[in-house]
């Protein structure tokens, strides 16, 4: 069977998904939450570990942010993905799209890329703007680590996006799709935590390299 993919159709679908979802109020709200969160954590983050209340550099900010991002982004990804297919199937718009000369592959890939761009925009808007602010105050040392953190966060959330779109294609109801998404979210969290637990218990360090620690968390969850 030949792969039935038409790049132009994929692009059209991706563009539509982006335009339709980027104006979604939730996505905008969450970008703002990220923005504020980074600034607040950068400022107060040190206090929780007994340090001073002042703007910290990227390294310390990332250390605190990684756990939060690991919780929040999957939620956004699942929110975007869960209704991508079943939602449109329920309201009839998928029928119109599938009535056009497009293949199922075009639609799924287009949706994945389009919603992925929404995630990318959310992460780079929320983390990017606040990153520039933190950098301007506390200095741009380790900004590469911060960038790496953003990229890893993006890849991490793409994993959840893929899964929730998959759930959306196999679900027969919107509610089943979100239930599936949540199961994946929590099992991902639990598996990740257990793996980190094992890693720490078997002599892995947490404080030595926080950027790397986050990457390890990503990989273990994925």
């Amino acid at each position, binding site marked *: 069977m030949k792969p*039935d993919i038409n790049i*132009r*159709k994929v*692009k*059209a*679908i991706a*563009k*539509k998904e982006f*335009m*339709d*979802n980027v*104006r*979604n109020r939730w996505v905008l709200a969450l970008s703002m939450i990220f923005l504020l969160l980074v600034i607040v954590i950068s400022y107060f983050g040190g206090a929780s570990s007994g340090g001073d209340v002042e703007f910290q550099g990227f390294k310390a900010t990332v250390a605190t942010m990684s756990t939060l991002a690991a919780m929040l982004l999957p939620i956004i990804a699942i929110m975007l993905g869960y209704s991508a297919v079943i939602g449109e199937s329920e*309201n*009839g*718009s998928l*029928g*119109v*799209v*599938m*009535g*056009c*000369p*497009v*293949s199922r592959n075009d639609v799924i890939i287009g949706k994945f890329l389009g919603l992925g761009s929404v995630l990318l925009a959310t992460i780079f808007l929320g983390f990017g703007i606040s990153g520039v602010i933190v950098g301007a105050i506390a200095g741009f040392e380790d900004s590469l680590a911060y960038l790496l953190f953003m990229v890893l966060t993006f890849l991490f959330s793409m994993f959840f996006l893929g899964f929730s779109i998959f759930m959306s294609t196999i679900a*027969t*109801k919107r509610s089943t799709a979100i239930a599936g998404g949540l199961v994946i979210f929590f099992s991902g969290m639990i598996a990740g935590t257990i793996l980190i637990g094992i890693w720490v218990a078997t002599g892995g360090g947490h404080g030595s390299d926080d950027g790397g620690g986050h990457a390890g968390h990503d990989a273990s969850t994925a």
Partner: protein
Amino acid sequence: MTDHILQTKALKKTFKNVQAVKGLDLNVEKGDIYGFLGPNGAGKTTTIKMMLDLTQPDSGDILINGRNTRETGVLARKGIGYLPERAQFYRNLTAHQTMEFFAELKDAPKEECDELLAKVGMEKWRDEKLGTFSKGMVQLVGVAQALLGSPQILILDEPTSGLDPRWARALKDIMLEMNGKGTTVFFSSHLLSEVQEICKRVAILNKGQLVIEDTVSRVSEGLTGKPKLIIRVSGDAASAVKALIDAGFSDTQVHGQVISVNVDANQKSQVMKILALANADVEDFKTEESSLEDAFIKYIGEDSTPGGDRDEA
């Protein structure tokens, strides 16, 4: 070669234990305006979805331009304009963005977007988001979208539902206009009047089975064969009826002073003579041709139980 543009052959579909479509053969000819009639739950939507490969048939074939859609795949849908029943689109896209999106999917020229929005009377709302539209307005954008790329075949599922009478009229005119330009129009409806009004051919579906497929006039004729003469008389209606029945007009009914009798066209004067002899003065009379509605009720019977159109879960 036949001039059949769209055919189904022994099409079957079962959902769980409900047989939605039971071996359906339809023949839509090039240039038809084809009305697909049936009560709710008859299997109309399921059939249409199978034509567009949105639902896979259990068995049977669909031929578009004589070619089996199993072989043509995605390309089978090229040249088809489709609008599902009660479709919704994307809340955050404007009417124009929605049209552009579908133009890209159908490789249709971009200029058509504005032209077609104007055709359905939506040009004023070109840059408004669909989330703010009424159901009827969304439906009109849906119609405009179906017309993109000058399709050979238009497949519309209950296109006038949700439209007010003025827009339903406009939509029928659009269908006639497109048909005049050579587009074959296939649409489902449970409104007999609109089918009778614009269709050339009609199929009646009931409980997943084809009841009849023929031209509108032959479907209407086929049932009684005789137009109905309705006469209001003054004087003794009862004895007039008795005289008519004695003269061989057995299919005669009376409600008060109104007598209705099924007659052949050339028997009308005979009826009048009998009434005159029976001392019934004719105050008024009219003939009623048998309508598609009579045919419909006759063909599907009185017992059809209502049920929702089944969607693929």
